[in-house]
């Protein structure tokens, strides 16, 4: 493999990895606080993309307004989903909540199919954000740089929020112990809503970034990134925000490099992601940065 090609692969890995990471952070935050695989998270990507799509093409908003509105509406939607579909099940068995999440995801997809139609639509990339960069034999989009930067900035923001602010401390406290947190006058529901707010906002940004990178929106577009990013979050150690980042990058790099070095196995790429997931679950259930917990008898 020549140097150029290798560098090209590295650039590809970074883009894919940071997209995975961006979405995985949302998964990990929600899982961290209420131990739920939020299947609907992936569909928020789709919602955000469609809102941005309609904002730009139908309401002819400038792209930045469309993006901001998309993120805001997605956030509201994420918080509402929590209120309607997860909060009533707070004391229910985890399986019930998980089924509820599957139900929400199912509903969002099918409502989108009925309302918007099943046919994919091209996502308008703002020219100000997307252009081609050529460096010798390597060629890539500005997004290759933009996406990691956005991911990194958001990661730092979220880290700051969770580590340094009062709300962040409350989130971590709630994730450990609802009851004791409420004894500290913490409104647990509000904290959980806030977590969903941040998670959904990240899904919104993630959805827009995803749609710029792969400029096509359709009702089922969340399905695959959803599963992949959840895998990334588990790999990194679910509940850990830097873990999600690492997991996203590890998965992105693995996926690119397996095709690069073993092109004959490229058909097995998706299986490979699951294989990593299962291996991690079996040998290091807490993930790369996660903690291992033992059930008390």
């Amino acid at each position, binding site marked *: 493999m020549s140097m150029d090609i290798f560098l090209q692969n590295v650039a590809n890995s970074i883009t894919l990895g940071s997209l995975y990471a961006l979405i995985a952070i949302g998964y990990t935050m929600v899982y961290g606080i209420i131990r739920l695989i939020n299947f609907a998270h992936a569909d928020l990507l789709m919602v955000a993309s469609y809102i941005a799509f309609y904002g730009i093409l139908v309401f002819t908003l400038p792209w930045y307004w469309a993006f901001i509105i998309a993120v805001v509406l997605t956030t509201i939607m994420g918080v509402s989903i929590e209120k309607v579909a997860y909060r*009533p099940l707070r004391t229910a068995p985890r399986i019930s909540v*998980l089924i*509820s999440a599957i139900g929400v995801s199912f509903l969002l997809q099918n409502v989108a*199919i009925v309302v918007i139609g*099943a046919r994919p639509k091209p996502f308008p990339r703002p020219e100000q954000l997307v252009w081609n960069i050529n460096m010798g034999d390597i060629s890539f989009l500005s997004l290759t740089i933009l996406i990691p930067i956005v991911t990194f900035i958001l990661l730092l923001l979220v880290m700051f929020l969770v580590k340094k602010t009062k709300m962040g401390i409350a989130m971590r406290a709630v994730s450990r112990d609802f009851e004791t947190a409420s004894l500290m006058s913490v409104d647990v529901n509000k904290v959980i809503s806030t977590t969903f707010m941040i998670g959904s906002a990240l899904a919104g940004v993630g959805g827009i970034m995803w749609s710029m990178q792969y400029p096509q929106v359709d009702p089922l577009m969340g399905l695959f990134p959803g599963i992949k990013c959840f895998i990334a979050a588990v790999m990194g150690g679910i509940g850990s925000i830097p873990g999600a980042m690492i997991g996203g990058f590890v998965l992105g790099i693995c996926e690119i490099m397996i095709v690069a070095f073993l092109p004959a196995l490229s058909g097995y790429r998706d*299986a490979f992601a699951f294989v990593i997931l299962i291996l991690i679950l079996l040998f290091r259930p807490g993930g790369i940065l996660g903690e291992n917990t033992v059930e008390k008898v």
Partner: protein
Amino acid sequence: MDDKKQIKFILNIAVLALICVFLWWGNDNLSSFYIRILNLSAIFVILGISMNLVLGFTGMFSLGHSGFMCIGAYVASILTMSPASKEIIYFMEPITPILAQIQWPIFPAIIMAGVVAALFGFLVGIPALRLRDDYLAIATLGFAEIIRIIVTNTITITNGALGLKNIPSVKSMWVYWGIAIITIIILKKIVNSSWGYSFKAIRDNEIAAEAMGINLFSHKLLSFSIGAFFAGIAGALMAFLITSVDPTMFRFTFTFQILLIVVLGGMGSLTGSVISAVAITILMEVLRVVEEPINFFGLLQIPGLPGMRMVIFALGLLLVILYYRQGLMGTREFNWDYILNKIDSFRKRGASM
């Protein structure tokens, strides 16, 4: 006690006889459309109750059913297709010589489909069942996808994405409902045996179950493999019903449909799953109405809305889990005891008046 037992026995026989009469009548008199829907219901009954065994009775949140179905469908198809068909169908790369000449009758192939699926269930279960709850869910979902991807890529065995065609067609309701009824009976026997109670004990409280001398791992594995066995059989029947298979049939979204059946019917109720499997399969067709263009007295024309059926099902799933978590039957079973008691109490009330 004995009296009641006898009554129940007679009632059971009567119901079976009634079903037989219906099948006998239906095979000749129903249009092939209704037969197909009823046969498909039978397949979903098998899928529903076998998933319920794993999910509802043993409490393992496994989402791998579509993978085992996939194995069953392929095993049955490859075993029953005629060598001539195989030669034509595998036009990209020829089939592995060992498989090329095989042509089994249908029933052994169905059994074999179950056995191979169970074997895979066993192998998948060994690592996966060390996990719990949503981790188990995501791992089994992963395994199902891995199975599907392997099937897609092993072209000399499965013909890859091109899928298989010219699988012998089976239309008789006897086969589908016969197997479905046998499955119901077997699972009912299992559930009511001390193994079944052990599964429920594991679901209720793993730690206590272990302390009662139940080997968690082997019992979970047993339940999981039985589930896979019947999923494999259902896959085989699916192949015979449609007569062609390809890997995209068995995406994990298919498992969600079975999940819908199990949740609506009630996790932990076999009869619940049976009723909801039949009801959902039928509703799936009945609800086509909502996707057709609607015409209000020729005044207002509403264009058809493809996808509306699934919206209704998604809403149904959500409403059930939010407001009616037990599903249709909860963990109860629809049985004679219940009805006989009802009649008894009714009679008593009548007598006392």
